């Protein structure tokens, strides 16, 4: 593809990245400091426009390649946007835009002296994730992976002393994960001499018996598993999500682990190919086992949590497990369901963490029992909570049902009935802990009020309303979205 559209992969990445570099300079002056949040939102909007343009271009005309510096593959670093990349980039940018636009008041309340560094790190994180989505070269993905991870460590650490301990644990495990990823692509490079995904795809499927390739895949799965909180490598996630500031969690939780799943999908299904994944024992079995264990462990542990954000964090472990289940089953419906669930879960978790943020701001809600303070006081928040919670459980017509439905269909078609049973069981478990929380927030006025609540920030109200509407819209349009996924985003050979 030539012409002006060819530069779109870079145009998705540049506005956010360049603004991230400009913000600290701007923050030196008092006037500049007030400009920082709107400028961040503006940069995200510019990138989102490019991402939507790229998505429509890719859906009509096919993938866009941009050879960075004019060096074409296999010598140069390839930037490549296909259906999956563009979809992921659009999702990342939409969630980041809504979260940052909604949370300015909350950021100023939680970290009053660190507003500019917060926005800088947030934009660097998003630019790293966009680089991962738009990159067609495995080592380039590593570089952006580290950019995003280091920014995430910093973002989480802005939350105070407990958050710094959680961030240190995340640094330790995350760095080992990234090093294992680098080692994995090192083994692939050792055997083929290539780093570009499209070039590797021509040579790797013929070399599946080589020990170097098998060791490389093992390290890749271990490294990316650490990054995406695949069971049993999920230990860093609960503390990191619950101890960080509410806005940092709302920003990181919907998109970070999903992008790591995207890297795994790219490597397994594009570099190795669908046939190779089915042929290489025990690749699908590992995905299925880790996914199933994550689903069960996450749901059971979430039920036992008292802190609201910790409950949501363990719920995320469960949902990542569910996505891995879909990848492990590996047929068209299951992959449709897994990708659909990436979209849906981002919307749901983003909404839930914004709800947590708003409830903490006005009523100091930290634990599930504290949710009772919201009775009769925050109708919009409670309505959004009902929608998001029903969607997490998987009640139609909210979007959460449809991701699970497709994976269930795929599992039954593949003869893996136990996966279908597990999905239903996990939905029941999810219902348990969400109903426990919902029970506190029903519309009965409380008997007494403790302290006068602070006014609800308008941005967060808007954010929760927008995401709840998006949850319902994604549910309403599930079938067209699933068809678009099947048409443009699935790997070849399913």
């Amino acid at each position, binding site marked *: 593809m030539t012409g002006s559209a060819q530069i779109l992969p870079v145009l998705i990445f540049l506005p956010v990245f360049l603004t991230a570099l400009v913000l600290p300079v701007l923050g030196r002056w008092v006037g500049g400091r007030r400009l920082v949040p709107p400028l961040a939102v503006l940069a995200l909007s510019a990138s989102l426009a490019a991402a939507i343009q790229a998505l429509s271009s890719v859906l009509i005309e096919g993938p866009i390649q941009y050879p960075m510096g004019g060096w074409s593959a296999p010598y140069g670093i390839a930037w490549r946007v296909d259906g999956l990349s563009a979809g992921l980039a659009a999702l990342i940018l939409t969630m980041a835009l809504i979260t940052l636009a909604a949370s300015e008041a909350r950021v100023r309340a939680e970290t009053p002296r660190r507003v500019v560094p917060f926005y800088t790190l947030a934009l660097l994180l998003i630019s790293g994730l966009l680089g991962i989505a738009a990159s067609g070269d495995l080592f380039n993905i590593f570089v952006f992976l580290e950019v995003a991870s280091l920014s995430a460590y910093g973002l989480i650490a802005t939350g105070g002393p407990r958050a*710094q301990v959680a961030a240190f644990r995340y640094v330790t495990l995350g*760095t*080992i994960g*990234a*090093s294992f990823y*680098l080692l994995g692509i090192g083994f692939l*490079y050792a055997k083929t001499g290539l780093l570009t995904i499209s070039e590797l795809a021509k040579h790797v499927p013929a070399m599946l018996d080589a020990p170097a390739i098998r060791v490389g895949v093992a390290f890749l799965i271990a490294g990316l598993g650490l990054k995406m909180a695949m069971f049993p490598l999920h230990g860093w996630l609960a503390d990191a999500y619950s101890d960080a500031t509410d806005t940092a969690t709302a920003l990181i939780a919907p998109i970070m682990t999903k992008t790591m799943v995207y890297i795994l999908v790219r490597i397994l299904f594009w570099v190795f190919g669908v046939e190779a994944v089915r042929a290489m024992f025990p690749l699908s079995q590992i995905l299925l086992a880790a996914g199933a264990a994550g689903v069960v462990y996450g749901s059971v542990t979430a039920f036992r949590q008292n802190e609201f954000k910790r409950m949501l964090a363990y719920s995320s472990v469960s949902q990542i497990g569910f996505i891995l289940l879909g990848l492990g089953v590996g047929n068209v419906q299951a992959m449709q369901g897994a990708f659909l669930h990436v979209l849906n879960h981002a919307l749901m978790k983003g909404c839930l963490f914004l709800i947590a943020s708003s409830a903490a701001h006005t009523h100091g809600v930290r634990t599930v029992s504290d949710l009772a303070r919201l009775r009769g006081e925050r109708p919009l928040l409670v309505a959004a909570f009902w929608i998001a919670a029903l969607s997490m459980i998987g009640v139609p017509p909210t979007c959460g049902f449809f991701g699970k439905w497709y994976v269930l269909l795929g599992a039954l078609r593949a003869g893996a009935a136990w996966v279908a049973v597990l999905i239903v069981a996990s939905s029941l478990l999810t219902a348990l802990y969400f109903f426990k929380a919902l029970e506190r927030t029903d519309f009965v006025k409380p008997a007494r009020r403790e302290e006068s609540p602070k006014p609800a920030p308008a941005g967060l109200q808007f954010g929760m309303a927008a995401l709840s509407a998006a949850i319902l819209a994604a549910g309403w349009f599930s079938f067209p979205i699933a068809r678009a996924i099947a048409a443009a985003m699935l790997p070849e050979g399913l």
Partner: protein
Amino acid sequence: MNVVASHFHYLVFVVLLLTGCFLAFACRNLIRKVIGLYLVQTSVMLFYLSQSWKDNTTIPILEGHGVPDPALYANPLPHALMLTAIVVGVATLGVSLALIIRIHRRYRTLEEDVLLQRMAEEDAA
């Protein structure tokens, strides 16, 4: 013995990798964990660099004119990749040390078990 001699660099890589992982997971002192992380990253760098060597080649610096014969030079690409990895390692080191400074300032300890104990006491209070 010949196998060991010809694969010596891979053995060193494995020893460094495992030592680094052990330090990062098993040590109680936070600084030692950071050292372990850095060892893991260094071992990966050694792995890449050991792939760039070919027998009877020289360092990949062009001198003079004319098209060079690639068979005469070692592979420069892993070195270029590892320059980036070194930068990433330094950045990670910086972030971890900054976190350790903050943790020490607040909890006055660098041992993980004492740290967790003091955090638990603070939660109970």
